[in-house]
């Protein structure tokens, strides 16, 4: 009973955490020793990043617009319209930009990574790399990890710009807030460190999505059903870890 209720989940949790950490360590070792193909990193960055761009644009467009909509209404009623820009930008740079980008990225790119590696696993392609003396972590995980670490911050920059711009149009349309007032508020209410620290968070989220998706893909077994399970697990785990790390990083970076 104790074994089933307490020890088994305990072992599973630490087994999982250990496996992910070892894979991350291995992938970083190949990255640091430059055992990577730049062309493969670029290919992954294009596939994972560029093709996620339209979804990120749409998500950040509506999020920036809705924050501005709510804030602008309250601002007009209470007479603090000069704070609308700063509240939108503050929230977007620090939290919503990186966090929403990572969540959408996990759903789009994390699922794609887990599904493609899972399919490779169940068709013995990953074993084929191993059998010919090639580390699958080196050729499959490291390029995806590097691509995600650089791509998510870039997508976050887009998300920030589009979210704040959408916020302006909504503030102007709903509350008639002038362009100068809005953007002056953005400038006055935020610090460059808000933006940069948001990008640091985005890079960490990119690494989380990549390594969890790769790990789940490598663990897939049992055919199409197993690939589906790996994909779902990858997205769910990456999203939960992203939120958990977001709290920790906000605590450390914005204290």
């Amino acid at each position: 009973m104790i074994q089933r209720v307490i020890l088994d989940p305990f072992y599973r949790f630490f087994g999982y955490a250990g496996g992910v950490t070892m894979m991350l360590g291995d992938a970083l070792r190949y990255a640091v020793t430059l055992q990577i193909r730049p062309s493969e990193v670029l290919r992954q960055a294009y596939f994972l990043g560029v093709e996620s761009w339209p979804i990120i644009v749409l998500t950040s467009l509506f999020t920036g617009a809705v924050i501005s909509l709510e804030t602008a209404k309250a601002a007009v009623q209470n007479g603090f319209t000069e704070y609308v820009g700063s509240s939108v930008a503050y929230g977007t740079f620090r939290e919503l930009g990186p966090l929403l980008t990572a969540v959408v990225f996990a759903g789009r790119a994390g699922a794609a990574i887990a599904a493609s590696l899972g399919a490779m696993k169940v068709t013995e392609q990953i074993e084929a790399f191993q059998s010919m003396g090639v580390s699958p972590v080196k050729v499959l995980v490291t390029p995806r990890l590097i691509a995600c670490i650089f791509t998510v911050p870039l997508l976050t920059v887009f998300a920030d710009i589009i979210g704040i711009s959408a916020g302006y149009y909504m503030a102007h349309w709903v509350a008639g807030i002038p362009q100068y007032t809005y953007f002056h508020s953005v400038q006055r209410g935020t610090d460059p460190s808000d933006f940069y620290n948001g990008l640091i968070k985005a890079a960490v989220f990119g690494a989380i999505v990549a390594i969890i998706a790769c790990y789940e893909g490598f663990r897939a077994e049992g055919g199409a059903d197993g690939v589906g399970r790996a994909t779902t697990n990858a997205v769910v785990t990456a999203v939960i870890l992203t939120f958990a790390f977001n709290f920790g990083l906000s605590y450390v970076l914005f204290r």
Partner: protein
Amino acid sequence: MSGLNLAQGLFAGPPLPADDIAIRLDRVALKYDEKIVLSDCSVDCKRGQVTGIIGLSGAGKSTILRVINGLRHADAGAVYIDGENITGWNEHELIEMRKKMGFAFQYSALFDSMTIAENVAYPLWEHTRMTKAEIDRRVSETLEALGLSDVENSLPGELSGGMQKRAGFARAIVNDPEIILFDEPTSGLDPIMTHIIVTTIKSIQERLKATSVVVSHDLRSIYALSDTVAMLFEGTIIESGTVNEIRRSPNPIVQQFLQGSELGPIPL
């Protein structure tokens, strides 16, 4: 025996395989979760010869190949490759050892995002310092030898099962390995394609003089290819010898398997 020799005898462990033994499994045991797959499994594969391993479906034949390649670690016993005990080697040591092996998988395991030529070239890109022109030439020669010249720019999904098998062989042999492992090379193929595959493996063997291990339950292919045959039953090698010795084996399990009879000691 002197004291020193006695101490060496006591602590040296099992004797190393003779030079003519390229692969030795010595009392290997392996479990998946709680299921015993290999148990006290011992087999020798002679250098430059073809060893066929036969047995029922799910008997652990493919697992033997994975243990030899280091893809699965034995829970007990020892695995010797070229006289070196690889049991307990870490992944980085195994990577070096695998460079001298070729593994032809049951379902080919071709990289589906690469063309056939890219698949075959892959081990050369990874492990040699050959120029692109040299690699292209070697790949073309290998594909031509296996009758695949026309499909070098095709993706694996565009080929028939037999062609995929041969492309898998091409990738396994392109860097002239000393040891080649064939996992069910003729499974799922029609008799004509089976004949072509058997002929292909024979010609590979003639050309490379490699130590090959062929795992199959297709007896005709095994008889045609093997110098030595070993029968695996319930995780243990129960009989081994030349093709004729196996055919004449008095072991009722071997006879039931060879005759394909449902009557006998094998539980169905």
